[in-house]
């Protein structure tokens, strides 16, 4: 195959070494950031869902009261 003729074995060895080291370092940093940021996102997720459910309940109640019914 054409690449096998032009790219020496050392190229592949250095490529995979660099990829492994670089990816591990990058992933380590990202893992710390996502762990901290994810915790705050979870808090925000529950807050948003609760608020949207409350708003939906209030909306239904208002609609019913306008029609003369009870929520």
């Amino acid at each position, binding site marked *: *195959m054409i690449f096998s003729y032009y790219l020496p*074995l050392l190229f592949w*060895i250095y490529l995979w070494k660099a*990829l492994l080291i670089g990816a591990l370092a990058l*992933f380590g940093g990202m893992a710390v950031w*996502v762990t901290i940021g994810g915790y705050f*996102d979870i808090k925000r997720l529950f807050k*948003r*869902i609760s608020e949207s459910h409350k708003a*939906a309940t209030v909306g239904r109640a208002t609609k019913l009261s306008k029609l003369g019914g009870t929520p």
Partner: protein
Amino acid sequence: METAAEALSQTNFSAIDWVIVICYPMISVVIGLIVRKYIVNMHDFVCAGHSLGLCLGIATMTGTELGLITVMYSAQKGFVGGFAAFHIALAAGVVTFIVGATGFLVYRLRAMKVMTIPEFYDRRFGRKTRILGGIMMAFGGILNMGLFLKVGSMFLVGITGLSAQSWALPAVMIFLLSLVLIYTCLGGMISVVIADYLQFVVLSFGLLLTTFLAIRSLGWTHIFSTIQAEMGREGFDPTVAGGEFGIEYIVWMGFLGLVSCGIWPTAVARALAAESPQTVKKQYMWVSVSFLIRFLIPYFLGLCAFVFIMTRDPQLQGLFFPTAEGVEPFDNLYAMPIFLGRILPVGIIGIISAGMIAAFMSTHDSYLLCWSSVLTQDVIAPLLGDRLSAKARILLTRVLIVVIGLYVLYWGLLYKGEDDIWDYMAVTGAIYFTGAFALLLGGLYWKRASSTGAFLALLAGSSAVFGLGPVQDLVGIKISSARVGLFSIAVTIVAMVAGSLLVPDKRRKPSESPQTT
């Protein structure tokens, strides 16, 4: 010679590790119970209310895609292909980054505010395409996850020192499946994302630690020199013709990189659940690191297992590479768990195993939820004329979760194919994604794409089934799965273009056109 049972029983796994492993999944079940009150409608159950922030989106996408099955099949590829297998990881990372940077496919899908890909089919191509698309997706997807339970259980059997030949494998399969079913049925997407987050935390740090311990145990230079001595150039260069991979395989892997982030429904589900289309793009750029690492570390652990067996344990070498005629080699899926069982210390091995169980559960829950909600929302509900109430849909989804779970148990015990697990998954997934690729590409970027073209493309995708070993045996052919996959892509695109040009749609309402970036 060391027998299989003796080899498996040599492990550092202790009573402390058992306690960690048993307690950890219970936490996930408790989470499922706690968050149940937040599930009010199908929107919450399937999309978490479209409320995923960037970090949670990254964590949950990584949690879903970095499953125990991924770790196992990747380790198998590393074991047989050495460092050359790294090209699959590189392709996955680069393609995911490009999808994030350009917003290719996912941005427009999120902008349309659809809940599932078949819902997009409906809005772009009509109801019939949605139903057929849902059937193809569920068929390919459920077949695809058929071996998840068995392979995941093999990891636990291997690392804990339980014998693979007796009651252990089916018992572990039933135990894990029961946990996943209870937990997924209870919580839906909200409990899934919380569990995915926990799994991300445990597994990310666990895998990094395991990699460090593997290097420390074997020696950095020794790993490279052994692969060079045992595998030669093929152990590093994926382009070598006649080796484990080759150019055709690399092209197929590049396409699979696009599929796994931009078309595969469990990954796209996270994009559709994001706060906004802009968040999707950021999420994908960041998650490209996870998509790279989710293959890279397991490949590395697999090739470390190979180095361990070839240089540290001659008895295991005789088991995995028997020289005597007529002796079957031991299943190489067990190589990585046996290796980890020998090198990881007490306590750490329990945490890693618990992380792997979490990975197993997070993948299963996402896949079960995905396929069951596709069947409910995109096949059964449209067939019933959308008369199903929200409550009935959630109930039906939960029933389907149990049915699919039982199928996975049955298929794991039944299937006897000899394909590498990764190649099995690529081919079964291709039944769905080759057609889906043509539909998404045409539907989002080509105004003349018609419903007839879409319908034909979906049907043409089923040609990928000829890549499976047992099917090839049945019809008497022998073609590489990569070639079958690439052929299927070409056929679906031709079907889409030809069908659209020959039978164009008569008219389309302006509201049905997708929004642009």
